[in-house]
C-alpha cells in the first residue's frame, strides 16, 4: 500500500513503543527571497535508518543545517527526543544528541586521526582546565579512557592503525569514514550523514552499507542519511523521504518510493538520475 500522505509518520515496528528521536513540524527556511525548505515534516524512530533523497539543490543539506542549528528555521519546530530545540545553538544541539558529517568533508586536516576522534570525545572527558595544567589524576584517567575509546571507534572501520597519521593525508574514502567516527565519538542519538558514499568506489560503498547497519545495531541509534547512490539508499534505509524544491514530495519504504510517480517525475524532471 502506497502511503501518499507525506505528513503521516512511519516508524519501524520496533520503535513504535519509544519516543521518536526526531520530529520536525512544518519546518521551513528562507534565504532572502529563496525558500530553500518549506513545510518539512519528518519523524524518525529511535533506531531507524532513514534516507533523505532528492535532486541537486532540493534542500537536503539545508535540512541538515537546520537540524544542527547552523541555520535557525524561519518557520516550524524541531523536537529532539521530544524537546524543542528552538533556543539551541549547534553546540547544544550536539550535546542534545545530534552529530553529523559534511557533504564537503570538514575534517581537522592538520591534526592526526586520533586527535580528530579525541576532539569528538571532547565532552566525554570531564577534567577542567586546572586538571590539564597540573596534570591531575583525572586528566590521566580521562585521556587514557578517551584514547582507548577512540581506538575502539576507529576499529569499526578498521582504521586504528592509522591513528597517528595526519587526517588530511588519508585517502578520500577514509576521510569520509573518519568523519563518521568523529561524529560517533560525540555519543549521538541521531547521526546525520551527508552523502557518505560520495567519491567511493562500489566495493567501498558496499562496505559502508554494512557498516552503517552495524553502527545502527551496535550503538542502537537512529541514522538519517542523504545519498545520491540509490543502491545504498535502497539497501540500507527503512524509510525514505524525498525532497524536491524544498518540499517533501513523498515518504515511504524503499519499495514504495521506487514506484512513486511523483518521485520518478522529480528525478526525470530535474534532468538527472542517481548519478548526479
Amino acid at each position, binding site marked *: 500500500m502506497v502511503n501518499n500522505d507525506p505528513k503521516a509518520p512511519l516508524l519501524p515496528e520496533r520503535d513504535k513503543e519509544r519516543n521518536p528521536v526526531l520530529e520536525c513540524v512544518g519546518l521551513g527556511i528562507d534565504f532572502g527571497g529563496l525558500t530553500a525548505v518549506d513545510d518539512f515534516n519528518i519523524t524518525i524512530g529511535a533506531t531507524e535508518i532513514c534516507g533523505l533523497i532528492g535532486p541537486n539543490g532540493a534542500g537536503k543539506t539545508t535540512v541538515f543545517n537546520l537540524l544542527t542549528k547552523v541555520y535557525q528555521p524561519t518557520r516550524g519546530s524541531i523536537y529532539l527526543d521530544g524537546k524543542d530545540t528552538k533556543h539551541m545553538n549547534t*553546540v547544544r544541539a550536539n550535546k542534545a544528541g545530534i552529530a553529523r558529517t559534511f557533504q564537503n568533508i570538514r575534517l581537522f586536516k592538520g*591534526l592526526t586521526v586520533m*586527535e580528530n576522534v*579525541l576532539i569528538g570525545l*571532547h565532552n566525554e572527558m570531564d*577534567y577542567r582546565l586546572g586538571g590539564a595544567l597540573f596534570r591531575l589524576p583525572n586528566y590521566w584517567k580521562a585521556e587514557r579512557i*578517551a584514547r582507548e575509546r577512540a581506538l575502539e571507534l576507529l576499529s569499526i572501520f578498521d582504521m586504528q*592503525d592509522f591513528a597517528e597519521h595526519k587526517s588530511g593525508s588519508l585517502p578520500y574514502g577514509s576521510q569520509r569514514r573518519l568523519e563518521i567516527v568523529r561524529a560517533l565519538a560525540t555519543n549521538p542519538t541521531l547521526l546525520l550523514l551527508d552523502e557518505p558514499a560520495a567519491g567511493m568506489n562500489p566495493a567501498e560503498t558496499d562496505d559502508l552499507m554494512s557498516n552503517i547497519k552495524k553502527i545502527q545495531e551496535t550503538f542502537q541509534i537512529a541514522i538519517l542519511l542523504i545519498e545520491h547512490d540509490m543502491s545504498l539508499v535502497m539497501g540500507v534505509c527503512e524509510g525514505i523521504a524525498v525532497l524536491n524544491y524544498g518540499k517533501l514530495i513523498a515518504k515511504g519504504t524503499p519499495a514504495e518510493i521506487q514506484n512513486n510517480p511523483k518521485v520518478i517525475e522529480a528525478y526525470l524532471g530535474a534532468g538527472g538520475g542517481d548519478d548526479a
Partner: protein
Amino acid sequence: MTNLNRHKTIPTPIRYLINTGLLIALIVVGHIITEGGLFQIGRAQQRIIVEIGIFIILAVSLNLVTGYLGQLPLGHAGFMAVGAYTAGIFWTSGFMPDGASMVVGLILAGIVAAIFGIIIGIPALRLRGDYLAIITLGFGEIIRILITNLSGITGGAQGLQGIPRHSNFILVYICVIIACTLIHMLMKSRHGRAILSIRENEIAAESCGIKTTYYKVMAFTVSAFLAGVAGALFAGNLGILEPASFGFMQSIDILMIVVLGGMGSMAGAVISAAILTSLPLFMQGLNQYRLVIFALMLIVVMIFKPSGLLGTYDFSLSRSLERLINRDYKVKNFVRKLAIPLKRLVIPNAPGRNFLKFTGILYAVVSLSIIAGSIIGMFNIGPLLGVLPSRYPGAWQFFFILNIITGAYGLIVGTLGMLFRKDVGKAKLLRVLAILSIWLLAFKYLVILDGAGLLVVLIALPIELVLPILFKTGAEKNQSAHITSISEAPGKDGGNHGE
C-alpha cells in the same frame, strides 16, 4: 594494532623527569654563563639575553592565538604595555617588601592584562573574520594614547622612571619555562585540542560540541596574561618605561617573530625570538637598517618556507628519544656496536651477570667517592687545598648538596645492580634508573666544576654514558643468552627473542 603495540614509549614519569632535569640544567648553565662571572659578559649583553627571554614569552603567547587558535590579533604590545605599567607602578609604589612585591607585581600584571583580554576578546571573538585584527589594533593604539595622557600615574611621555630592576636571568627564564610549560600542558589536553579544532575548522568544531567562543576567549585571555607578565619583566629589565615602546610596530615585531618561527610551533617561536632579538647584538652599526633586514628575512622565509622556519612542527625531546628507540636503527645499532667492544674492553668475555655485578660495584665506588668529595668540599676543606673557588661559597654548597644527592642515587643504582643481578625483572628496573642517570649526568657536570670533583666525574662520565646501553644488553643477555644476535637484529625490536 601491531603498529601501536610495537611502538615503544618512554614512560611518562621518566619523560617528565628528563624534561625537568634538562630545564633545571638550562637555568643553572644560563645563570652561570650570564651572571656567574665565568665569562666576560657585559651589562648590555646581559640585558639582551634577558630580553630574549621576554620576547620568547611574548612570541609563545602570541603564537597561542595566531598559531594554535588561528586568529590574527594586532595589539599584543597593548597587553604588554598594560602589564608593564601595572607592574612598574606597583613596584615603584613600594607597597610591599621587595621580594614579595616582585612576585605579586608579576602576577598582578598578568591578571590586569588578562582582564583587558577578556574585555576585548568577548566582543571581538564572537564575530568571525577580521574583526579581531581591527579591534585589537585599535586597542593597542588606545592603550598607548591613554598611557601618554594619564601622565599623573604613568609618567606620560617622559616615561615611568626608577622601576626596580627585578628582571635577572633566573627570574625571566623561570617565567619563560612556566609560560612554555603552561602552553604545552594546555595544548596537550582536551582544551588545547578544542583550540586547535577552531583553527582547523570552526563549523566542524561546533558540530563536535565545542564551545568555540568560550575557547577563543580562553586562548586569547591566557595569551594576554602571559603578554602582561612579559611586559612586567620588560619593565624590570629596563627600569624605565616609555609609551613609545608599545606602539603598533612592537606588535608587528612580535607577530613577525611568530610568523618567522612558524605559526603553531612553540619551538619555532622560541628559536625565532632568540634570533631576532639578538640580531642587534651582532649588527651594531647596522642598526638603522634593522627594519630592512627584518623585512628581507621575512620575505626570504616567506618565499622559501611560507609556513615559517618550523611550520607547525613542535620539538619534543621524548618524541625524539622514542624515535631513536623505535625507528632509528642506524643510530641504535651504531651505539650498540660501539658498546660491545667497549664492554669487551672492560671485561673480556664477561657473562651478563658478572658484568652487572662489575658495573654495580664500580658505580657504587664512584658514587661513594663523589659523596666523599662533596662532603669534604662542604666542610670547606677545599679552599685549604686550593681547589675551590672562593667567589660563590653559598652557591657551591648548594651544588655540593645536589652532588651528594646524585651520588646517593648512584650508590642506590650500584647497590641494586649487585643485589638484583640474577633477577631479570629487577634488571629492567635498573634500566629505567640508568636512563635517569643520563640527565643526572648533565647536572652532575655542573655540580662538580671544582677540581677535586672533576676528577671523580671524569671517571664516572664514561661509565654513566655507557651504562644504560650496557645495562640493556646485559639484562637482555640474561634472557636470551647470546648477545650478538640481539645487537645484529635491528628489525626485531630487541627483547623477546625466543630461546
